């Protein structure tokens, strides 16, 4: 038995809220696809190729770029993407 049996929570005490994902759109025709380069090496090459493939299929794209891969995306960038597109492709790694 231990004399002290009460501890204090070292965490931020924030509960995560589980949200259901948006249903994938039935078609990409007629709505722009956001292409986000997070700033990792050669992410632009991946985005270039994806963009080319979308364009070949007649799907319009919009390109976005994080200022640096080492920091979180600025809020205004996230808001702009959310307003302008419903689908995002992110080049996540090198």
């Amino acid at each position, binding site marked *: 038995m231990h004399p002290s*049996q009460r*501890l204090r929570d070292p965490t*931020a005490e924030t509960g995560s809220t589980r949200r259901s994902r948006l249903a994938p759109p039935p078609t990409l025709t007629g709505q722009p696809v956001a292409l986000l380069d997070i700033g990792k090496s050669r992410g632009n090459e991946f985005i270039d190729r994806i963009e080319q493939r979308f364009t070949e299929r007649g799907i319009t794209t919009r390109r976005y770029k994080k200022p640096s891969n080492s920091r979180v995306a600025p809020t205004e960038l996230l808001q702009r993407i959310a307003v302008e597109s419903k689908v995002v492709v992110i080049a996540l790694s090198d």
Partner: protein
Amino acid sequence: MNTPADGLLVFAKRDCPTCTLIEPVLQTLDREYQATVVTQDDPSFPANVTHRVDDTGLEWSYRQAIEVVPTLIRLQGGREVERTIGWDRAEWQRIVGRADLGSALPALRPGCGSKTTEPGVAERLRARFGDSGLRAREIELGEYDDPIEACYARGWSDGLPVVPPTDERILRMLSGTRRRPDEVVGLIPPNLAPCTIEKIAINAVMAGCKPEYMPVILAVIEAALEPTFTMHGLLCTTYFSGPIVIVNGPITRSIGMNSGVNALGQGNRANSTITRALNLIVRNVGGGLPGGIDRATLGGPHKVGLCFAEDESDPFWTPLAQARGIAPGKSAVTLFQGEALQGFVDQRARTPEELTRSLAMGLFAVNHPKLCEFGSAILVLSPEHYRIYRQAGWDRARVERELFEALKRPGKDLVIGAGGVAEGIGPERANDIVSKFWPGGLLIARAGGEAGMFSAILAGWIAGRAREQTVAVTTEIRE
């Protein structure tokens, strides 16, 4: 606890010579004035007293804020109206209202410290009987739970045991700073969760820190939250890097940090726990979990927490913090994004030029021998290597300058494919002379034991590609 509303209350302990001296007075007060004698250590002291309270648990003493024994208090209508400490015969006679009280005793005898003032006791009593003032969620364990296992079970550990964060320990940790427990220091990545001084103290307890480390820990957190330190990216990276802390200044001596034998190794509490506190805060407050947002391919033992002090014993050598703008005599932390550890051996160098060329060879291996202007590094100069520079009269500025010049190579040897190695710099650099590090990308600190021509290289993070955005950060420690 049922304090009488009216009458006399005396706090005493057998261990106090003044208390034993006035034992006859206490017996008189008990017999003729129905005084209550509260005894802190020996429940049988004073002898022959009927209104005696066993206060070995110290609750009465805590609630009456007793600092010295004996203490005589007069209560009236539930309120304290008189108090005297120690034995002051005239004061006791006045408060009791009896001119011949203790007339056979000396006029004055100082008291002793109350047991409530013994080291570590105040926080324990505050946690037990008072309002701790702590706001973090309380977690009650079962009677037979092991607190260390409970911390593991809740995911609060970096893999090593943590010290269970009890109120008593947290209050003691908070005594290491004058800052308010509810002050928000900043937003801890990756979840950008607000972090209070109290949360820092809780995690510092868990890391094994002592209260006197708190000023250092607070400076470390402050530096880690500087945007240019990019703590978020450092945590997420697939690369090896984690935060490395170098401490400079008088505080390294006052908290007993190691800058000598085995300075980068185990065995010193401050060295072992200060960066660990930061990493636990990022884990617990920020939510940065290995395998979650921490995507390190291999990581390294430094990610538990690597911290050391610079050897400042030679005034000829400018300490790292001063070289980075901190005033002499002040203490500071420098946070670097790096890894431990690449050993460097040179037992034959005798001149500064030989040693510089040799060190440059070792430093060129950082990240990859053909990758340049890509990473950064800390060079930890051992005493035997430093002596070569010292004897030649090379100061910090000279060593930095000479190393920078020695760390250049023809681009044709470094480009992609050169030497049959695919890795390398871009082919457009083939005709350039290329520096290994950009200016300021190599930090030099002195540390280590007297014997051994071995220095250490702590390679930096390759996110230094974006070098204007990710840099080492030096912050003054404010005590």
